[in-house]
């Protein structure tokens, strides 16, 4: 029975692993729902900002702000890489890091001095492996990034950019397109363009948006501006940047959970398959053993005659 026993042992361990991956899948699903709800809730703000910017733009006010100033040539660049703290999320971290590395290489050939900020343990380990020295690292962002935390980071970048220490800010993260499609991208957040300020980051076409649509287009609302349209616009630019950065974090959090969910579902399915084939193998081994024993008995009985 030696071989059959070994197979049973293996089957048992595969079953245990299946239990773990199945649980992880369920946890990731629950976290994904939460992260997704947060991301959806956060959109009310950007939608409103976009609306106000559109209203302000209709007055013909032009924006000028240090964060919109494009500096040529770009000499220094800061790249913020958003990865996860935990692994077992399929290609999630690998894709982001690959995209970041490609962007880094092309920037380096253009003679740009690139420095890094890395979020997530996975990215930090990768940087260590590649021998890169990140300026600062963060491991506090979990699946629920807080605006207050992101704001601190955003203020830092605003300060760095306006003081001329960096000419460009790139963020490498996984963009959430739909629940079946996420894409690792490198996005330039600074300098911002005037159109980005008023861009709504909404991606889910929810029914809540229709509440205001009847009056949004067509007639212009005769607003009173306090203090005046231009200075409000100026004030909106940094807010818009912070929200865009926050959205990157939210997207990354949602995408991470989706990747983990998909990876763990795959792992569970594979474990199922393996259990099935191991069961078959075991049955065969057992049958072979019975047949062999029968043959021995019959052979023995025949010899006695």
């Amino acid at each position: 029975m030696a071989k059959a026993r070994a197979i049973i042992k293996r089957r048992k361990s595969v079953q245990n692993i299946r239990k773990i991956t199945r649980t992880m899948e369920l946890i990731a699903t629950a976290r994904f729902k939460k992260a997704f709800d947060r991301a959806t809730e956060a959109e009310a703000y950007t939608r409103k900002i976009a609306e106000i910017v559109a209203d302000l733009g209709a007055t013909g006010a032009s924006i000028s702000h240090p964060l919109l100033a494009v500096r040529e040539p770009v000499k220094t660049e800061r790249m913020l890489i958003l990865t996860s703290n935990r692994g077992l999320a399929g290609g999630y971290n690998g894709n982001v890091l690959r995209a970041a590395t490609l962007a880094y290489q092309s920037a380096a050939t253009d003679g740009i001095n690139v420095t890094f900020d890395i979020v997530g343990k996975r990215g930090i380990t990768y940087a260590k492996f590649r021998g890169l020295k990140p300026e600062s690292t963060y491991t506090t962002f979990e699946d629920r990034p807080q605006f207050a935390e992101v704001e601190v980071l955003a203020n830092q970048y605003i300060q760095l950019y306006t003081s001329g220490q960096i000419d460009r800010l790139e963020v490498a993260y996984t963009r959430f397109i739909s629940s079946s499609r996420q894409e690792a991208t490198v996005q330039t957040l600074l300098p911002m363009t005037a159109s980005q300020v008023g861009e709504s980051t909404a991606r889910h076409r929810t029914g809540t948006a229709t509440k205001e649509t009847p009056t949004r287009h067509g007639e212009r609302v005769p607003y009173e501006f306090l203090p005046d349209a231009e200075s409000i616009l100026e004030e909106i630019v940094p807010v818009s940047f912070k929200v865009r950065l926050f959205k990157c974090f939210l997207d990354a959090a949602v995408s991470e959970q989706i990747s983990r969910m998909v990876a763990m579902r795959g792992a569970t399915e594979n474990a199922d398959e393996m259990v099935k084939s191991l069961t078959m193998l075991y049955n065969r081994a057992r049958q072979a053993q019975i047949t062999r024993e029968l043959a021995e008995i019959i052979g023995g009985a025949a010899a006695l005659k």
Partner: protein
Amino acid sequence: MSTVSDRLQCVVVTPERTLFDQPVDFVALPLYDGELGVAPGRAPLIGRLGFGEMRTNVGGVTHRYFLDGGFAQVRENVVTVLTNRAIPAEQIDPAAAAAELERAKAQPAPTEAEQAAKMRAVERARAQVHIASKRG
């Protein structure tokens, strides 16, 4: 709209979520240069907010919130407040706010930009202390 024209819909939105969305009788907003009261039927307005206290009045009951800057939009009896943080007045810790004010005041600010940042921090902390002390 005729049924709700005598009431304001007050919506407070932070980057994380919609905090507050309900009909009120009156809203007082902390604009950058002083307080602005909004009653039903107010002409459309977009304004910059400062650090300060927002009051809403629903059927004679007043609720107070601390607003951390942002913008306000008034249109068709809908008051939309966009702010980084909105904290109900009763949740502000007076001791923590006072400590924050001391810390902000003690901050050295040699450059112009830092001076401006310090002013903001002090103003912000002062508004919190003010709101916290008014409770009672």
